């Protein structure tokens, strides 16, 4: 059974969410402030599979919580709930390491679908063995880099770096289509699940974060290439500069 943590200080919303999530068969804990949520998540006994995180919390706000969580090395999927739907807020959440977001008031079925989607992706990355998907290896290597998809780890020149669930999923999607150009809309639909309300800049944002992990010079990418006006393309072995 998946265990969820709801971090929400508004009592009514918290208990409404708990009721619905329990009805879906999840085990649900509730924290009403950022500090105690962070303590629970970074504590040794944490077995939380997914976090629903409100942005406007007393004390530490949701942005700070997700940032500190990632800094502390926890890569549990995080869905942020915000009252303000400003693109800037959403992008900031992603920048700090959130996996998904919803604006209040949200639709119950969409919330449940997003949670399910993230948990499914997590299971897909972690549990299914290579035997089930012989054509989809669990790790790939290219030019001194090694990506361990189930472990959500990228190793570059011997240095390990953790990736968030959505970063891993995005990288996997692109590496499976090596050499092909994938447009932003396709990425939004296939990696994040269909949605109309998400800005395609979300994709750019995640690519920027991936570049910082993958590339030697993020501003001069050689593996995760921008195809102007369309989308992105992954190249495993870039041709050396000067050779055409």
């Amino acid at each position, binding site marked *: 059974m998946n265990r969820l943590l709801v971090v929400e200080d508004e009592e009514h919303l918290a208990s409404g969410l708990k009721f619905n999530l329990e009805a879906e068969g999840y085990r649900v804990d509730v924290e009403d402030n950022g500090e105690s949520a962070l303590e629970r998540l970074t504590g040794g006994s944490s077995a939380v599979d997914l976090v629903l995180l409100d942005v406007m919390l007393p004390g530490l706000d949701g942005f700070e919580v997700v940032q500190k969580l990632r800094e502390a090395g926890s890569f549990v999927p995080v869905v942020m709930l915000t009252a303000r739907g400003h693109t800037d807020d959403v992008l900031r959440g992603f920048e700090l390491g959130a996996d998904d977001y919803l604006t209040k008031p*949200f639709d119950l079925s969409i919330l449940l679908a997003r949670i399910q989607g993230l948990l499914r992706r997590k299971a897909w990355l972690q549990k299914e063995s290579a035997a089930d998907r012989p054509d989809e290896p669990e790790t790939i290597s290219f030019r001194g880099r090694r990506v361990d998809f189930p472990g959500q780890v990228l190793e570059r020149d011997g240095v390990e770096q953790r990736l968030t669930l959505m970063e891993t999923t995005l990288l996997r999607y692109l590496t499976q289509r090596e050499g092909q150009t994938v447009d932003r809309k396709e990425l939004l639909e296939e990696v994040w699940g269909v949605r109309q309300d998400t800005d395609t800049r979300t994709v750019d944002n995640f690519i920027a974060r991936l570049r910082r992990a993958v590339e030697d010079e993020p501003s001069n990418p050689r593996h995760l290439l921008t195809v102007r006006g369309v989308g992105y393309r992954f190249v495993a072995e870039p041709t050396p500069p000067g050779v055409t």
Partner: protein
Amino acid sequence: MVPSEIRRRKVVLVSLLGALLIAVAVALNIGWIVVSWRTGLLLLVGIISFAVLIAGLALNTAFLIREIRRTEQHNAFIHAVTHELKTPLASITLYLQTLKQRDVDPARRREFIETMLADSARLQSTIDQVLLAGQTGSARRVLNPTDVDLSEVVGECVTVAGKRHHLVNGEVHLVDRLPEGAEAVVVGDREELQAAVTNLIDNAIKYSGERVKVAVELVKLGARKVAINVKDQGMGITRGELKNVFGRFYRIPSSLGARVRGTGLGLSIVRAVARRHGGRAYAESDGSGKGSQFTLELPLKPS
């Protein structure tokens, strides 16, 4: 960088620039006097025009800083109102969808309905607050004054506030200190007065934290005035904040330990209502952690 940080830097930069310009002007002025003290009349004209220049610069800088602050408060207000409107709406939507999509047993269903009613009351009070802030902010006088019995209004406010905050064991109580048989009648707008008193009581409860103990006193001040004192034993107010709290959109910084929701309109409405009725509103506190007392002073109806 966080937008508010950028803004703060800009404020610092503008303030520094203003201060620097003033310093330069003063230095030039003094220098000029030293160099050309002989030239009598011209000197006088020069001093005056420089003084005007310096005053203008100082005024301009002060004005700029005030405007920047106001914009900041305004943004914070929009943010707070968005939150105050969207949170209860999100809750109502969630419960309605739950009822629509799931089989909920009757007891739970009742509970959900109570929750939704509480949320719609919260929405209503935010909307009322915003509308009232617009109304009291625009005109100087009450439009249709009538005779209002304050003991009745205050008694009602105490009862309603207690119920709304689920405080039914006398945590909020009325202390009637009017002389035997005396009435406290003021001329004004009943709804506005009710809103002002309710805001004071709500604040006292909200800033009391866990242990709520609020006394609402009705006292006669001499022959012509009546005061409503709302005393709490909550977090108190530091000396520097006592005046600020009545400012429109102003909210005590959360760094001072207040984890309280609101729009920053409540006390500005109280002050506006007091002024529109020819009275005043003020706050007293012995400092942080020592509780506070808010007073709404109104002129009695001349007998």
